[in-house]
């Protein structure tokens, strides 16, 4: 028999018993959609973890901090003299898979722009690393190697500015509206003194010995794109300039400067940010940095444990769905066996008239497979509808946490896999009945009245 005839005949047989076929298919529909919907919840969880994390920063980044580096085996404070300095930066750069290493120093400075004034962290950075580390400007440009006195601002940095002459300085993110300030065109004065520009309070004597704070003229060259990360809240300038400012401030106002910058030493960096080419290498690179004695941290780290959680979740949810598909599989087998009882005579006649044994087996497998496939297809439609509904309803109260992801996600691969799976379930369920039909004695069959 050619395949088209087989398919037609199988379809005809299914259509002959519409109610029973539909009920059997319904079982598969429920089974498939419960698996798909359950898994989609787990997948959505995975996605939203990822989304949340990537909002916190890039997943390719590893941060190494200038504190807490006592790895396994090294007692705190004892043993190695470990410094997060140029030497360490170089060794990290040697690790395979590392695309760039950005040493970071931070100074808390005050910037005065016209009438406005703001305290903000300025990070020293090597300008050529900005592109590697995905800095993107919204207006202006990034830093260049020749920029000694240029600053690039994070998107949210304007929030730090206020007008000290106003009675109720509206500053900070709590302010009713962001302060209007043009950091690109105004002349900017930068200082490390946190008293600069304040009105002096009556009765407080100025210490005559204290030198006036050193002022630096700087210019804003760019505003970064909003990235929902720490980049939004920092300003960036050339590492060399920052280094100079820090040194000078230490000289002029020893006490205060020291306090502000904590235990930072001049030849050491506060933090080193490492960019890894491929997300899959992050773990290995991190492991290497750990063996150097540092305590690296990455979001991938977190992602791993989150993924672990969602995998367990998916296994449980998928298991629940699998039970209902298993029940559906029993339904298919039952339907096929019943169908054989009903069609015993027919099968016998077909055999006597010369139907190939394999054709008879194929016919029954095809019928079971069609139930599986049809059920899977309808199940997918139902799954997408349920998913849509869940996201409509559940999106509301989980919106803050779930972000754009929603609480149910059905990726194309899951849909295809589900369709393949339900078809296979159909075929497997039909296997034994099909064999039975094939091995039926033709004579017994036509004799049965």
């Amino acid at each position, binding site marked *: *028999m*050619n395949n*088209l*005839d087989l398919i037609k005949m199988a379809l*005809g*047989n299914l259509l*002959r018993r519409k109610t029973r076929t539909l009920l059997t298919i319904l079982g598969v529909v429920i089974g498939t959609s419960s698996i798909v919907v359950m898994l989609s919840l787990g997948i959505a969880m995975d996605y939203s973890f990822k989304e949340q994390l990537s909002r916190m920063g890039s997943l390719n980044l590893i941060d190494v901090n200038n504190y807490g580096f006592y790895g396994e085996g090294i007692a705190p404070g004892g043993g190695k003299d470990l410094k997060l300095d140029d030497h360490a930066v170089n060794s990290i750069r040697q690790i395979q898979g590392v695309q760039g290493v950005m040493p970071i120093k931070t100074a808390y400075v005050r910037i005065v722009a016209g009438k406005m004034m703001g305290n903000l962290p300025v990070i020293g950075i090597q300008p050529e690393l900005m592109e590697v580390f995905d800095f993107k400007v919204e207006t202006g440009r990034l830093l260049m190697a020749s920029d000694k006195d240029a600053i690039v601002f994070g998107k949210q940095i304007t929030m730090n500015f206020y007008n000290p002459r106003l009675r109720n300085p509206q500053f900070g993110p709590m302010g009713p509206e962001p302060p209007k300030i043009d950091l690109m065109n105004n002349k900017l004065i930068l200082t490390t003194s946190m008293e600069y520009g304040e009105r002096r309070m009556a009765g407080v004597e100025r210490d005559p010995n204290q030198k006036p704070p050193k002022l630096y003229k700087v210019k804003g060259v760019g505003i970064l794109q909003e990235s929902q990360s720490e980049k939004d809240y920092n300003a960036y300038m050339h590492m060399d300039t920052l280094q100079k400012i820090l040194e000078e401030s230490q000289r002029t106002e020893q006490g205060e400067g020291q306090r502000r910058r904590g235990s930072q030493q001049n030849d050491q960096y506060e933090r080193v940010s490492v960019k890894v080419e491929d997300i899959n290498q992050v773990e290995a690179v991190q492991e290497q940095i750990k063996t150097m004695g540092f305590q690296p941290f990455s979001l991938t780290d977190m992602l791993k444990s989150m993924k672990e959680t969602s995998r367990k979740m998916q296994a449980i949810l998928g298991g629940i769905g699998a039970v209902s598909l298993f029940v559906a599989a029993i339904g298919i087998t039952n339907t096929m066996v019943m169908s054989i009882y009903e069609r015993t*005579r*027919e099968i016998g*006649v*077909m*055999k*006597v*008239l*010369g*139907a*190939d*044994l394999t*054709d008879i087996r194929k016919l029954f497998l095809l019928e079971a497979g069609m139930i599986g496939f049809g059920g899977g297809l309808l199940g997918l439609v139902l799954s997408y509808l349920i998913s849509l509904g869940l996201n409509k309803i559940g999106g509301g109260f989980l919106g803050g946490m779930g972000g754009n992801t929603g609480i149910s996600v059905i990726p194309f691969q899951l849909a295809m896999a589900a369709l393949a799976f339900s078809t296979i379930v159909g075929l497997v369920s039909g296997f034994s009945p099909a064999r039975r039909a094939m091995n039926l004695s*033709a*004579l017994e069959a*036509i004799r049965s*009245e």
Partner: protein
Amino acid sequence: MVNIQNVRKVYKIGEERVVALNDISLKIHPEEICCFLGTSGSGKSTLLNIMAGLEKPTKGTITIQGKKIEKMSEKEVTKFRQKNIGFVFQSYNLLPSLTALENVSLPLTFRGVPKNMRDRIAMEMLESVGLKKHIAHKPSQMSGGQQQRVGIARAFVSKPPIVFADEPTGNLDSKTTEEVMSLMLNMAREYKQTLILVTHDKSIAEFADRIVYILDGNIEKVEEKGLMKGAGIE
């Protein structure tokens, strides 16, 4: 054509043994119309089924066109039937879900003949059994005689060298019986096929070239009908 040699068939039902066929030997010639006649329970159907390879003999051999049927596997015997044997059943055995046309073309479908070709052949067959107007009818919409004519068209559609018919008129009235019998005989003669009939009805046996009387699993006697042999067979 068909050579039956010392065929014996014994059924075991629990402790009891039923000898359906004792020791049967017979040669059936090409293009012959041969009828097995005997009372109910004499073993006619058993013999026919063994000849068609639907059942294996306890002893003896069946040779059709030089091939030993009882030695074939089920797969081989199915293929063999597909190519060489047509069947007419007492209870018609049409597939209830198929139309007359589809029922007739079924043996061609099993052989993998393309649809347009098999529809054409099946149509011709239905026309020659006088059911041109009923091609789209389901079996349930036809009378017994019409159903059996569809059955005959189906048995002959693939022009098999041998057609078996087990009590083909057992469920029909006498007038329809006559129509159906002459239809079968004409077809067999037209296509030069061997027709092997089984019946308990003497009047039907009269149509055959040779009547083989079966009694309790043995051949009682063989009656050649010189009149019908005029066609120059043997």
